[in-house]
């Protein structure tokens, strides 16, 4: 059994980065736990349980700051939860090596897309399509960094919805919040401002993770020995990370994303390909 203290420390770090970036803690937690000798499926299961805690904890702060868009969240959750149920069932049936490789590829894909997107800045006055207007996907939020209220209209929901189903599969499959993927869909496809997309994705992640957790729980993959240090650590880290996000500008959050995604992507792919698990 891995030492309680190491599990606890690694989990604090994972929770901190997860909350800062809106990605959820799993993206760091799973590679770290496997390095500590935890089997990848157990790591995935404990991660997705901890993701409920991280996303709920940090979402609570964002929701009360009126940055999160509840309607966007509720609409997209319909697609992510069904995806998560499917994804978790696939993992239970899969062997470990492809899981490593898929994990790495998902991270790499997010990194590339985010790098390309880095040059565009968000535009407030882009036109809204009829479907997104019918869905009432719009809102305003107080931006602390800009010191003003920013208003926006969501777009291309017909395209964002099926993509969120895919994000749900990834979340259930890999035990991550898949926040990077969700943020990407919100940013690039639906045209939401970066802060709204990270915080709304946080809200969606909690419900999506719950669907996945239910599957792993009934399969006996949730180990109480991991629950205590990992979930407690992740929550503590997320609390600290959340305090920082509200104060940082959109650009620093994005830059931070890029570095973390690349390092982890390369690491997981190498381990999957070489079979050194």
């Amino acid at each position, binding site marked *: *059994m891995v030492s*309680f203290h190491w599990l606890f420390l690694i989990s604090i770090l994972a929770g901190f980065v997860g909350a800062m970036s809106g990605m959820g803690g799993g993206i760091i937690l799973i590679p770290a736990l496997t390095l500590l000798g935890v089997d990848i499926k157990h790591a995935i299961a404990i991660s997705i*349980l901890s993701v*409920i*805690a991280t*996303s*709920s*904890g940090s*979402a*609570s*702060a964002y*929701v*009360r700051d*009126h940055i*999160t868009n*509840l*309607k966007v969240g*509720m*609409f997209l*959750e*319909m697609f992510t*939860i*069904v995806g998560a*149920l499917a994804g978790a069932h696939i993992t239970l049936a899969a062997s470990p090596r492809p899981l490593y490789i898929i994990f790495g590829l998902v991270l790499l894909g997010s990194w590339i897309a985010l790098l390309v997107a880095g040059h565009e800045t968000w535009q407030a006055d882009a036109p809204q399509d009829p479907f997104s207007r*019918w*869905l*009432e996907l719009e*809102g*305003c939020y*107080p931006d602390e960094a800009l*010191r*003003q*209220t920013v*208003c926006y209209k969501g777009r291309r929901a017909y395209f964002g919805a099926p993509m969120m189903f895919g994000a749900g599969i990834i979340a259930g499959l890999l035990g991550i919040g898949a926040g990077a993927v969700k943020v990407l869909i919100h940013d690039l496809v639906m045209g939401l401002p970066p802060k709204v997309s990270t915080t709304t994705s946080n809200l969606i992640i*909690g*419900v999506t*993770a*719950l*669907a996945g*957790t*239910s*599957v792993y*729980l*009934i*399969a*006996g993959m*949730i*180990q*109480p*020995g991991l*629950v*205590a*240090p990992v*979930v*407690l650590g992740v*929550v503590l880290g997320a609390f600290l990370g959340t305090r920082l996000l509200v104060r940082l500008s959109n650009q620093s959050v994005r830059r931070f994303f890029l570095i973390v995604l690349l390092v982890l992507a390369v690491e997981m792919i190498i381990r999957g390909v070489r079979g050194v698990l």
Partner: protein
Amino acid sequence: MSEPGVPGTAAGAVQPSSRRLDMDALVGYILLDGVLLSMALVVAGLFWHWLKTGHLVLDYQISGMNLFQLVGTEIREAVFGQLRPRLLVNLGIAVLMLTPFLRVVASVVYFVAFLRNWKYSLFTTFVLSVLTYSLFLRS
């Protein structure tokens, strides 16, 4: 000079109604209190386990149980006289899982009863149904 008024007027025109603001606060507190209660239960269970055994590693297994069986089994044990730290830890896991669930329940009530928004009533009800199904999965 008019600077303090600018955010106010901008917000006044387009900011959601006060009902919406209340909902934001409610959702925020459900999420926060749920996570805090769950963490408190896990910490208490862990501390109790440490007092009993002198170490922090919880070495039991959970297999083939859904959320309700997880808590039900331990409550049955407690009623028949065997009160164990794992009761608190299992309750902590259960509370954590019920936290986003409760948030969705609150959203359904909000869209159905307060906003009377049929579109979003339908969406939230769908989400609630799928989650309820997942909580009652059996092995």
